[in-house]
């Protein structure tokens, strides 16, 4: 606190009378009063004034009170109370207040009735018609519990089958050979001109001229030309080359020359080729070919006449897809290719087991 003087002595006086001065401040006050005796009289004559509070009640207190805040000007509160009434959220007091309010207001009473109509009742005539289709039999339930185990076991068996039975590279006598046919659209016949090696990984770099010179093992056959597709069918599409025929170098510009790959064992490509030349639908040489084509078309969505060679790997993939469909699992079986586009590995992945196996090469 600042020093006491004639401009601020009132503050010291009040604090003194309230008993709020420190002893040191009180000492200074008395020194000041000694120097200013006129002010000492003022302090002595000062009498504190006490004002007692009057207990006068406010006469219209009850009129200010509100029970549920309902009045004519506040319709949103009425709406809220109506909705809460429908929802069963109103307290007893609020319900009473709402009823009293509506008794005195016919318009709000009508609105309340409309609110009550917004409560929707379920239409019991609507029934689900296919209830029986949803139900499951006990046997299916038992089988379902075994699905994961069945799936894994089946997949492993299939993989083992794939590992041992997938056709290996270069193990078939005609796999890399090309048969060259000369066709004559007018006569609808053809003859085999040449059977040559298809460039493989070992001779890919050979120039065409050198490739042409390479001697081939040619099986001799008396009938040098095949007159129709029926003849080919009879021969089981075994490529016959006639030794006595001169071997001509192939010219790419010759429009009459056609190339077709001779497949080992499965000769559908050749069949398709010939039938395609005659604008006919392919016929299947046996039941296996038919099944392979049909399954390939329907399950694997392979376009017809795509000439995709069927492998046991395809069978394995269909089986895995079937297992996935039955069990809802996500087992995968995929081929992994190297940079030359050749199959390098087969990868298998399921919840319980995952492995990768390389393809054997001879």
């Amino acid at each position, binding site marked *: 606190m600042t020093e006491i003087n004639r401009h601020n002595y009132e503050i010291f006086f009040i604090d003194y009378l309230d008993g709020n001065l420190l002893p040191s401040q009180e000492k200074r006050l008395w020194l000041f009063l000694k120097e200013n005796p006129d002010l000492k009289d003022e302090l002595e004559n000062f009498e504190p004034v006490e004002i007692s509070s009057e207990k006068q009640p406010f006469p219209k207190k009850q009129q200010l009170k509100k029970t549920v805040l309902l009045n004519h000007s506040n319709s949103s509160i009425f709406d809220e109370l109506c909705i809460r009434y429908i*929802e069963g959220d109103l307290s007893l007091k609020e319900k009473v207040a709402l009823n009293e309010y509506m008794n005195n207001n016919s318009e709000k009473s009508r609105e309340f009735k409309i609110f009550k109509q917004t409560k*929707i*009742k379920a239409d019991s005539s609507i029934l689900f018609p296919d209830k029986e289709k949803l139900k499951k039999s006990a046997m299916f339930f038992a089988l379902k519990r075994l699905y994961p185990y069945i799936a894994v076991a089946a997949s492993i068996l299939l993989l083992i089958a794939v590992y041992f039975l997938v056709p290996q590279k270069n193990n078939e006598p005609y796999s890399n050979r090309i048969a060259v046919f000369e066709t004559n659209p007018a006569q609808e016949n053809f003859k085999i001109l040449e059977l040559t090696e298809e460039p493989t990984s070992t001779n890919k770099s050979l120039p065409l001229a050198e490739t042409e010179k390479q001697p081939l093992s040619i099986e001799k056959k008396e009938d040098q030309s095949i007159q129709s597709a029926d003849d080919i069918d009879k021969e089981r599409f075994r490529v016959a080359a006639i030794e006595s025929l001169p071997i001509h170098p192939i010219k790419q510009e010759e429009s009459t020359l056609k190339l077709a790959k001779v497949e080992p064992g499965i000769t559908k490509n050749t069949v398709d080729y010939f039938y395609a030349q005659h604008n006919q639908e392919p016929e299947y040489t046996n039941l296996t070919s038919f099944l392979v084509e049909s399954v390939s078309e329907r399950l694997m969505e392979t376009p017809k006449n795509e000439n995709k060679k069927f492998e046991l790997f395809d069978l394995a993939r269909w089986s895995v897809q079937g297992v996935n469909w039955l069990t809802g699992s996500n087992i995968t079986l995929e081929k992994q290719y190297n940079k030359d586009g050749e199959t390098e590995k087969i990868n298998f992945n399921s919840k319980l087991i995952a492995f990768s196996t390389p393809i054997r090469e001879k």
Partner: protein
Amino acid sequence: MTIEQYNKSVDLYSDAVYRFILKNINQTDEAKDIVQDTFEKLWVRASEVSFEKVKSYLFSTAYHTMIDKIRKNKRISSVDEYGSIDPLHNEHYTDLGEILNEALKQLPDVQRSVILLRDYEGYAYQEIANITGLSESQVKVYIYRGRLALKKYIGSMEVLI
């Protein structure tokens, strides 16, 4: 859940789920598909869902399947859309049930769903919140807005009738 409990669930709740979905989308075939999908999902997870909670699971799964389908069909309306419905297009209705159905159709999807769950199944706010993935407060707000819109619609139609 055992197979007996699953089949009992079909008997007990398939009608209710079907009604709920049908009232929401008004397409019989799609409603059937959703109910079938819902029970297939239940079947796949039968070992995880207890019989006591199967009803909530079914309604929740059906609701979300329906929302996915609606979104795919690009028919969903904004969840914040206020239920402003125009009764003047439906002057030919004379029955209160028809009026209410028509009003219900015109509500925003989320408001319609919460009101149906509340009125058809008598679910509490928190249960509706669990089924729809909304908060309890949001459920209350949507029920309030939906009822207010229905009341306005019915009131307008009463004047017209």
